């Protein structure tokens, strides 16, 4: 009975979080092949606070550009469309959630640490696989757990109970969610991302990151984030709301042909890159 009520509530509340106008525009125009750096710059310049935030991180060690980036169009031609879109989107989402909720036991800072680490790790795995558009993969990792923020903000009371249950029984967050709510943060996140018109691939990653096999033809993409998620938990970076390490999906493991040696190398790369990503953590907080 309770479950049905919660689903109804979700449907109502989901209308509430909306992306900023700028983020909306940027997502829209970056989907059009003919949009140019100048156009993108024009839209971002409407929000001066966003401009300075973006310029600050563009000049940070996170991107490591050996020069000075002074304008948004300049940032676009240096960092590329995907990076800029990622920044606008992330800025909008982090702002949206920082103002509300988060009074419960859910560790917001740990959440973002884990998310940034996942983004970085996903990128490293994708690079190893020979993928070209690594920035796209980065946002998958960064936003894969966005559902948790939605739950913590709009279902704070229930989510606090979920977090308690996790601690009490030492189970996975998603199992506790299923037990208490009847759905998990993956479903919530995908629902919200769909409403925000985020790229279809990102929506799939959010929905299936616990179980890449269900993503069918997009399994490979989803599996990257799935693996990154587990690896980041394994080395204990950040906090996703639970401390249990889920198993790696067997098929994903096979897909990447990883072995002890490559995992070891991956871990040392992760350490270096996650340290470089401090600026991004400041950006989302």
């Amino acid at each position: 009975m309770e479950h049905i009520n919660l689903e109804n509530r979700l449907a109502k509340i989901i209308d509430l979080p909306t992306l900023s106008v700028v983020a909306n525009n940027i997502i829209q125009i970056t989907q059009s092949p003919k949009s140019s750096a100048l156009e993108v710059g024009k839209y971002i310049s409407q929000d001066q606070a966003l401009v300075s935030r973006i310029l600050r991180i563009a000049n940070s060690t996170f991107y490591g550009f050996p020069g000075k980036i002074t304008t948004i169009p300049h940032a676009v031609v240096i960092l590329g469309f995907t990076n800029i879109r990622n920044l606008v989107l992330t800025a909008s989402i982090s702002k949206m959630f920082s103002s509300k909720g988060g009074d419960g036991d859910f560790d917001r800072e740990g959440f973002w640490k884990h998310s940034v680490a996942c983004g970085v790790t996903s990128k490293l795995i994708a690079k190893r696989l020979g993928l070209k558009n690594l920035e796209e993969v980065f946002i998958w990792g960064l936003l894969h757990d966005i559902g948790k923020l939605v739950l913590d903000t709009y279902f704070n009371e229930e989510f606090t109970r979920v977090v308690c249950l996790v601690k009490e029984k030492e189970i996975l967050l998603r199992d506790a969610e299923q037990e208490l709510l009847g759905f998990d943060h993956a479903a919530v996140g995908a629902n919200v991302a769909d409403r925000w018109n985020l790229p279809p691939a990102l929506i799939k990653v959010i929905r299936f990151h616990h179980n890449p096999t269900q993503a069918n033809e997009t399994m490979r993409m989803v599996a990257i984030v799935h693996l990154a998620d587990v690896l980041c938990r394994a080395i204990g970076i950040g906090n996703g709301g639970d401390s249990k390490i889920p198993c790696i999906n067997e098929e994903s493991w096979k897909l990447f042909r990883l072995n002890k040696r490559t995992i070891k190398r991956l871990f040392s790369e992760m350490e270096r890159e996650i340290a470089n990503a401090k600026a991004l953590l400041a950006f989302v907080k």
Partner: protein
Amino acid sequence: MKIAPIEEDTLFLQKTVSDLREEVGQLTMLQDISKQIISNYDFEQIINIFLDIVKELIGYSSCILYLYHEDSNSYQVTTFRGISEKDLRGYELDDEIINWVLKEGRWTHASFPERSNPKNDDFVSVLPLQGAKRNLGFLLISSDPEKDVFTQANVKRLSFVASQTGIALENQGLYSELSHSREYIRNILESINSGIITIDMADRITQINKNVTAMLGLPSADIIGFSYKDALAKDLVKIVDKVKKRALEDGFAFETVFDYFPAKDLRIPLGVNSSVLLDDKFNRIGIIIVFRNMLALKELERLRQLDEMKSEFVSNVSHELRSPLSVIKSYVEAILDQVDPSDYQTQRKFLTVVNNETDRLAALIDDLLDISRIESGKFEIELRPVTLSDIIQTISRDLENKSSRHEIVVDIPSDLPDLLADKDKMIQVFLNLVDNGIKFSPDGGKIFIKAAVKGKMVKCDISDQGIGIARKDISRIFEKFYRVDNSDVYEISGTGLGLSIVKHIIESHGGKISVGSKLGEGSTFTILLPFERN
């Protein structure tokens, strides 16, 4: 609650969809064009097609291609378009920027250090070129800022073309490396002093070198791909069959030697060996057969034997010189110290021994001088009419002194014409041959000397009833220094020079000498010499 899309949104969506369609069409076309790049192994062509496509896509005003040079460990200008060489310096990027761009692997705006002065306000961008695992270089592209070339679509297209070009350049590098190493191996194969044939497991010839075609006298080098059973001569096929079987059984076959007749009257001793060819997974993929011309080896063997014979000769000669000297010394000492000065008879007996030994020494030294004259080409003969029976008489007298118990039986017709010869040399020849007969016959044996006219020559046989000569030695007894090894039968002194000198004397008279023999029954030396006719 759903909000109906407003008109602007609909228009935007329609435009985006049509743009995306166009984009898909463009990318499909790009993919087709880039096949030209990928399937190319010519460096210049790859670069030219690449620059053409980039020009078509974003219409640059100039571009500069930098490629990595391993020798200098730096990126260097490989080619440029739409810019003069002296202006290149204005477009130099800092290493820091280059490394950043290559790490990011994206087409980005090029940020120049202050010392550079790119033309006007051109939009200069840098497109990295990367292979599967390494950075290959980058393309600096200068374009009109008004054109607003930095669009999402161009990012995608350029990155696609760049990645195809990267792969093509890498393939081209591998290809040329491969053809270099193939050429290198080919050169090794051709330079090897042996003939080489490789066959696969189905007996087809897969590789041959020039040496083998020369060595085996193959009619043509175009036998690759054919079964060796069809391509080679029958006797060769048999040999290859054998070494192939061996190689398949043991992994290799030791060298065996056979006589090969590439043409009539041409005999080449060839050595052949073989081993199994394995691939990197140790599967048998064929057999390598190596032929070696053994002529050189045989010559070497002959020289080695000659050398051995010379050393033996030195030791023989020393011995031969030493023993008469010792005899002379001890007899002279005896005469001086022990023999009663009035005992003339004993003194005479001893002095005769000394005399004989001195003769032996003199003969030996004569032999040595002769051989040295022969070797240096100073051996001369003086031809005069000589009566054979005179010579025989002379040597019989000489030999009587030697107190041997052999009987010399002479059978010379009285009407035998005079020989045209050098008398002293002829005496030397007969003395040598008869003395040999005596040396190699038991006491009481008979030596026969028989002469007759045969055609235009006088034929003379000197036979004994001695130990004879083994078959393997017969062809070699006239060789310098050669001594039949019969130490287990008889202890017979000699230098191994006599018969060699005899042969030389006979031949310098225009005659011939041959020998027939049966072990244990005796030998017959037959001499043919020209005679005086008038």
